[in-house]
């Protein structure tokens, strides 16, 4: 139990396990997610997912069903309600290609055997995902549980191609597709394609090819347990984070190259030139005075973000001084060179505002 109410502890590090899992599972577009619990658990998450999709200009409706448990379901057990909802899911049109069954606090408390109900053969994959929040998990746990569970649909590996999977993209955040495009661009420098976005905008069938990639690129180090699980099961090595920072982006190319047995030096050269051209675009703010601050007074300063900002400040010859233009530290860290470009655009606006007074 956390007694620290600061936003850094309540954003993605706490929150509901169920929401974390749904942020992954609803991106399997031909699946239906059943939330086994009271209707409110579904309603709340439906609203959140729908609103997030809308604000990312995606007019989609997450396919969620609730077992709508009420007090009687709790007293007498909710497995029958789950059976009924599963039958309803299977009768939907278009028919789902898979069904994920997510548990809630109350059904885990009364000991409903969700897994046993899912184990019956129904012609399509019906997969139980443990997501009861009270067991100590947080949003992040939900993401990990969901990724690991969905991975059970991967076919055994026969051969791998020179390609990569993007693992655990942060589907509820802005810039998800821009970040993916940046990774695809960087991988392209090495001649590596994207095998699968795991999980973003894919279909159940796509998951079968999860094991054919030569490397898994995890969104962030918190996903290491997932990366390790995939390595054990499918033999795919992983890079533990999307690249951040100027040097970090070049290191990323080297690391992916090393894993895939590719000489990355030409790609790194090319990227350095690309970074130089990008920085040249901000020559107008060279010599400006800046200072970095947490995005919110209650957020702790993230040393990784400070390192990235300091690196950019040096590259642009900015003076970091106490009375400089206030620049909020980025969260999450900008991805690749394109992410830095977007970040520097914001810096420029802040520097100009400060100069105008």
């Amino acid at each position, binding site marked *: 139990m956390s007694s620290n109410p600061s936003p850094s502890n309540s954003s993605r590090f706490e929150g509901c396990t169920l929401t974390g899992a749904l942020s992954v599972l609803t991106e399997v577009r031909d699946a239906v997610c059943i939330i086994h619990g009271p209707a409110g658990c579904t309603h709340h998450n439906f609203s959140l997912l729908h609103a997030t999709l809308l604000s990312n200009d995606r007019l989609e409706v997450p396919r969620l069903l609730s077992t709508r448990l009420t007090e*009687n379901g*709790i*007293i*007498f*057990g*909710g497995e029958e309600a789950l059976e009924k909802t599963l039958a309803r899911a299977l009768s939907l049109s278009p028919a789902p290609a898979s069904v994920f069954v997510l548990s809630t606090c109350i059904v885990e408390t009364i000991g*409903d055997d969700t897994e046993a109900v899912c184990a019956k053969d129904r012609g399509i994959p019906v997969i139980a995902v443990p997501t009861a929040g009270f067991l100590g998990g947080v949003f992040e746990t939900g993401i990990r549980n969901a990724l690991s569970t969905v991975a059970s649909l991967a076919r055994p590996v026969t051969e791998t191609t020179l390609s990569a999977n993007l693992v655990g993209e942060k589907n509820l955040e802005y810039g998800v597709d821009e970040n993916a495009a940046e990774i695809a661009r960087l991988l392209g420098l090495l001649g590596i394609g994207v095998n699968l976005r795991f999980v973003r905008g894919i279909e159940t069938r796509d998951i079968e090819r999860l094991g054919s990639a030569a490397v898994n690129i995890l969104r962030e180090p918190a996903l290491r347990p997932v990366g390790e699980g995939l390595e054990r099961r499918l033999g795919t090595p992983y890079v533990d984070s999307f690249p951040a920072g100027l040097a970090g982006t070049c290191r990323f190319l080297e690391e992916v190259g090393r894993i895939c047995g590719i000489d990355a030096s030409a790609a790194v050269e090319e990227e350095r030139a690309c970074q130089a051209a990008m920085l040249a675009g901000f020559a107008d703010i060279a010599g400006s005075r800046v200072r970095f601050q947490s995005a919110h007074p209650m957020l702790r300063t993230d040393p990784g973000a400070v390192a990235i900002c300091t690196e950019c400040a040096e590259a642009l010859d900015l003076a970091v001084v106490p009375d400089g233009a206030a620049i909020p530290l980025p969260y999450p860290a900008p991805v690749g060179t394109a992410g830095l470009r977007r970040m520097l655009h914001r810096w420029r606006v802040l520097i100009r505002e400060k100069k105008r007074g």
Partner: protein
Amino acid sequence: MKQIALYGKGGIGKSTTAANLSAALAGEGLDILQIGCDPKHDSTRMLMHGTWIPTVLDLIRERGDENITADDVVYGGFRGVRCVEAGGPEPGIGCAGRGIIATFQLLERLDALKGDVIVYDVLGDVVCGGFAMPMREGYAQEVYLVTSGELMSVYAANNIAKAIARLSRRVRSRCTLGGVICNAKNIEGERELVEEFARRINSRLIAYIPRSRVVQVAELQKQTVVEYAPESDQAAVYQELARTIHRNETTSIPTPLEMDELESFALEFVQV
């Protein structure tokens, strides 16, 4: 209105004691309501001459709680004792504790909790908050622990004393321990052991019910002892218990024993 609850280890004879107590209280001309709070729903069966009455939760499951009246859940038994069985889910599924809570809410709404004495007969151990419901505000003010001299039964009674002590700390709580009833198993020194246990948890032995074959025989006839053998010594014991409980005004907040205290207590009484 006096509300009492009988708690104790499973199989110790709570329901037999409760049914005979209710029957004997009714013999004093009192209006009695007995509520079985156990998914096994066999608390009132002897009062009902072997009939399994529909349980509150069966009715809720079949009809929903909107379409139930007091007459659907309250059944008149021997000497007019009104009988209710809470019931519960099938074994191995659901949440029986929540079932007790739902039952109480429904009985409240139906205004069914009335009479001169209400006897709550609660399952083996206070395994969760639901089964502590009868001890909560507005329900039983007096709890009677039923135990034999067997140590497992004493342990269970001590555990229940913990629940009473916990609940009695609540501001508006009126739950207290009325006393300990020894339902004997014919163990040597049994009465002394239970008496001493009661004393150590800041209570007292309120009745000693000797083991008697007539209890079994009456049960085979699907009757309480009070009905089957009203002139027997055993019936007299239950009548005395009824009178004692009815006029009992001495209750206490129990001081349950710690596990090591319990163990050394056991060693004092059991010859190894």
